[in-house]
């Protein structure tokens, strides 16, 4: 058996219609077609359009018809035109390629007649919504396109802090132990996690111990079913193939479970309506969706499932709710292998409490009852950026299940997730399968690399070591409280515009 390091194959996978740009360059009608902007721009925003020629010699924009004359140089008839190049009949400047623009203002400054201007793109804000903000959508599209870690210069440029994920900073270690290299070190940082039940200790009483019901995944990311109304077999096929390729799993609607998969990367999911159509044979992994059932009935169903599929890794999906923490302890004791905590697409409980604090509460309750290490916790809903992954793991999740992020990676950027429901604007356009699979692979590869950055900064070599390690994160809430205590309270009539 040869040793092989876990690796995600990434390669550029551009998607034509998935381009978002912040600014647009406007070319006014009085552009003299001199081409100075073309030399000024290092990023090829301004180029000539060889098929689109000015009316010969006039310098006026218009569709030319004399393609055969492309090499002719005709003097400009008007001596008043100021620019020295204007006697050359060059192809017309094409409309600016806004996607390349980096807002450096070079073309605006160098245009001799002031025909160019920049403005904020009105379309920019229409991608995503107030939770999946355009910057996040933009980052996911970049990650899915290139598989690289987004890098930029000149410091952080966003808001100071926010609620939930934005109120967490992860720790770093100034000097690390001799055995631990940083991110560029020789030592391997592992992102492998286990899904399922692990026995607390080896049984040494002579009895044969049952093999642990768990599965190793290369990354702490699995794919979740897209929230309703999205239910598309093409999407499922893409997610299954991507899951296979990166060594992870995809949760799929149970009734459409593809029995053809030899070693399924699929986790079939059944709810109370589809329960009876579940396969008799051992599916390996199974998710029971309890989100629409009263908690009192959960235990009975779980017991029934345990007797029906004794060898199967059983995951129960429950709504994210801190009040359910004690029930979850009971399930863990009754033999459930993994718990899937489903938040709303905006990353909150139904009451609007944020994901991070709730996951922390549930994790702490399970730890207090001494059962946390035996089961896995999957968290889904509202995972919209690479930094959410390490932060949720620090809060106590073993892995995350991503859904809307996959849709964005596939170029679906116009939607809203208000009031807990996904609403698409326009039809669902799923890209061709190979392209789609590559984009999902790129996304996972990029998020994994970013997870490595966080782990490297902490001097940790194993992602399982930081699960629930709340000491390695700094909360804005705590720091701000301590900080605020330093200052006196301003008097009521005090003017904040002076000072």
């Amino acid at each position, binding site marked *: 058996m040869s040793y092989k390091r876990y690796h995600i194959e990434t390669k550029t996978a551009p998607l034509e219609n998935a381009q978002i740009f912040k600014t647009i360059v406007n070319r006014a009608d009085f552009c003299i077609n001199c081409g100075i902007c073309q030399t000024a721009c290092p990023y090829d925003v301004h180029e000539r359009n060889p098929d689109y020629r000015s009316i010969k010699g006039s310098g006026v924009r218009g569709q030319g018809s004399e393609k055969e004359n492309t090499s002719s140089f005709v003097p400009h008839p008007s001596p008043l035109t100021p620019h020295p190049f204007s006697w050359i009949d060059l192809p017309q400047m094409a409309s600016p390629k806004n996607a390349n623009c980096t807002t450096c203002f070079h073309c605006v400054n160098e245009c001799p007649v002031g025909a160019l201007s920049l403005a904020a793109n009105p379309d920019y804000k229409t991608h995503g919504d107030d939770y999946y903000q355009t910057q996040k959508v933009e980052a996911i599209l970049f990650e899915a396109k290139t598989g690289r870690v987004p890098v930029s210069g000149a410091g952080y440029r966003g*808001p100071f802090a926010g609620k939930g994920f934005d109120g967490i900073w992860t720790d770093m270690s100034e000097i690390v132990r001799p055995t631990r290299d940083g991110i560029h070190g020789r030592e391997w940082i592992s992102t492998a996690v286990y899904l399922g039940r692990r026995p607390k200790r080896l049984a040494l009483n002579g009895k044969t111990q049952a093999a642990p019901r768990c599965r190793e995944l290369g990354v702490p990311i699995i794919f979740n079913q897209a929230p309703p109304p999205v239910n598309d077999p093409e999407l499922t096929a893409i997610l299954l193939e991507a899951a296979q390729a990166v060594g992870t799993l995809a949760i799929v609607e149970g009734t459409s479970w593809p029995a053809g998969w030899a070693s399924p990367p699929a986790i079939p999911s059944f709810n109370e309506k589809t329960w009876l159509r579940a396969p008799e044979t051992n599916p390996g992994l199974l998710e029971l969706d309890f989100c629409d059932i009263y908690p009192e009935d959960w235990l009975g169903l779980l017991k029934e499932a345990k007797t029906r599929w004794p060898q199967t890794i059983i995951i129960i999906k429950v709504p994210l709710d801190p009040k359910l923490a004690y029930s979850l302890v009971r399930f863990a004791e009754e033999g459930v292998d993994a718990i899937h905590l489903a938040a709303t697409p905006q990353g909150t409980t139904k009451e609007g409490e944020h994901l991070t604090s709730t996951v922390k509460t549930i994790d702490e309750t399970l730890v207090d009852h001494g059962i946390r290490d035996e089961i896995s916790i999957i968290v889904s809903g509202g995972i919209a950026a690479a930094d959410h992954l390490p932060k949720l793991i620090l809060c106590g999740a073993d892995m995350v299940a991503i859904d809307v992020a996959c849709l964005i990676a596939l170029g679906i950027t116009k939607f809203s997730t208000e009031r807990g429901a996904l609403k698409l604007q326009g039809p669902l356009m799923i890209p061709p399968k190979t392209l789609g699979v590559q984009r999902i692979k790129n996304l996972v590869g990029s998020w994994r690399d970013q997870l490595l950055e966080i782990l490297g900064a902490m001097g940790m070599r194993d992602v399982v070591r930081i699960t629930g390690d709340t000491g390695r994160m700094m909360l804005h809430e705590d720091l701000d409280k301590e900080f605020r205590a330093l200052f006196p309270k301003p008097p009521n009539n005090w003017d904040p515009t002076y000072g």
Partner: protein
Amino acid sequence: MDNLRQSTATTHNPQPTTSHAPHHAWKKISKWRVGYTNNCIDCGLCVLACPYGVHQRLPGTLKMAAPKNSGCIGPQCESILPDNYCVKQCPYDAITVTPNEEFEALGDPRYTPDLLASLWHMAEYGEAPPEHLYERRIGKSGGGFDLMRFNFKRLRNERPTSRDLDNISISLDLNRRAYGSKIKISVPWYGGGMSYGSVSLSVMLARAMAAKAWNTFTSTGEGGYPKELTPYKDYIITQIATGMFGVREETAGWAKIIEIKYAQGAKPGLGGHLLSDKNTPDVARMREAVPYTSLFSPFPFHSVYSVEDHKKHVDWMMTMGGSKILVSAKVSTPTDVDMVAVGCYYGGVHIIHLDGSYGGTGAAPDIAKKNIAMPIEYAIPKVHRFLNEEGIRDEITLIASGGIRNAWDMAKAIALGADGCVIGTTDIVAVNCTRCGNCEKGRGCQHGIASTDPEFTEQISPEWGAQRIINLYNALSLDLKEILWRLGLNSIQELRGRHDLLYYLNDHQ
């Protein structure tokens, strides 16, 4: 050599000359656009009304010239100068004042368009822009420095005379220990490390010239010591990091301060990384590396695993640089930043340089910039208090960096407990950085700042850049003095740790 050090140590309070230094291509992007409709009868009432000279007649005629947009303070004029508001003064309602879209396309919540434009104004003219033109005290990040306000003793409409400002001292002693040379810088800030390769030689030279003019320092960053910088060697800090790029005993011997970079704010715990495209043959020669390969300066120092190791490290620097040298430890801001600072002190350093997570000048992964380590605002009081409790606060100089944008941020950082600041981004904004954030792209910065591409770098001449930075420093020092004057303080030392002079607003205020 020692005589030279002594002589520069005693000269302070220089008055470098400021002069107008416009950008050769940069047109001013005004905040407001003023326009005349066809109703205009060229009566000229607006010319009389506007104190900012926005409206002017064409010379020698009665016709109105195109409005000078850059002076306009916008619709707030109506409440501030009700008798001078041209829109209301015009008898034919022929004047429109609208926001300029181009201006709004600049900047981000931390460096708002107003902040950028005010820094450019300072770099061009050497003085602050007119009051009301820009909101230049704070940004819009909604936290940290942007929520802090001074509780000034003087009233808003009081103005300091130039003598008032001259009497205020803003110089800073960098060495408070019993050993090493005594170095006093004339302004309470110095330039942060930007390496040859991450920025162009012209920018390095410009910063060094400005540092000399203002009797302060600039840092080489981790990319070697280009020989062009030797005339300014008394104003240059040599930075040493794990890659040891271009570090030679001779250059370390030239330095008056050696900075050990344990971690940096923008990518704490990740080390340095020069992308392959920016490693041009010149850069590679300096770094003794192969051209066009990615150069890593890996985290961490494998010679430093404890405070004892750190002490050995500092001793090594002192052996290399002579007994007069000062050693600075640049560290990032993890949870235990206070313990790290105390460890640095016991290792024998003179300066502890805290680099907060929101700063950084070169390219860094977005995830690291936003999420790893805490912002500098929270770290300063933590460290200040801990050093005080340990009884060692007055033996060490605490320098803060990472998101310090202007004189207000500096004053706030000092009021929180720092002795001085390090600025980096502000310097490069002065040489016309628009913060487009493309420092990492192939050929690098299209303004010739964060690039070693000859075609781009020729846009900046060292002399012009130096003049811009000198102008900026002049404006910053005037602002800082005015803040101290408004607080009723006489020196920057009196401000240290005075967080009782600050208010911290709620998010919604």
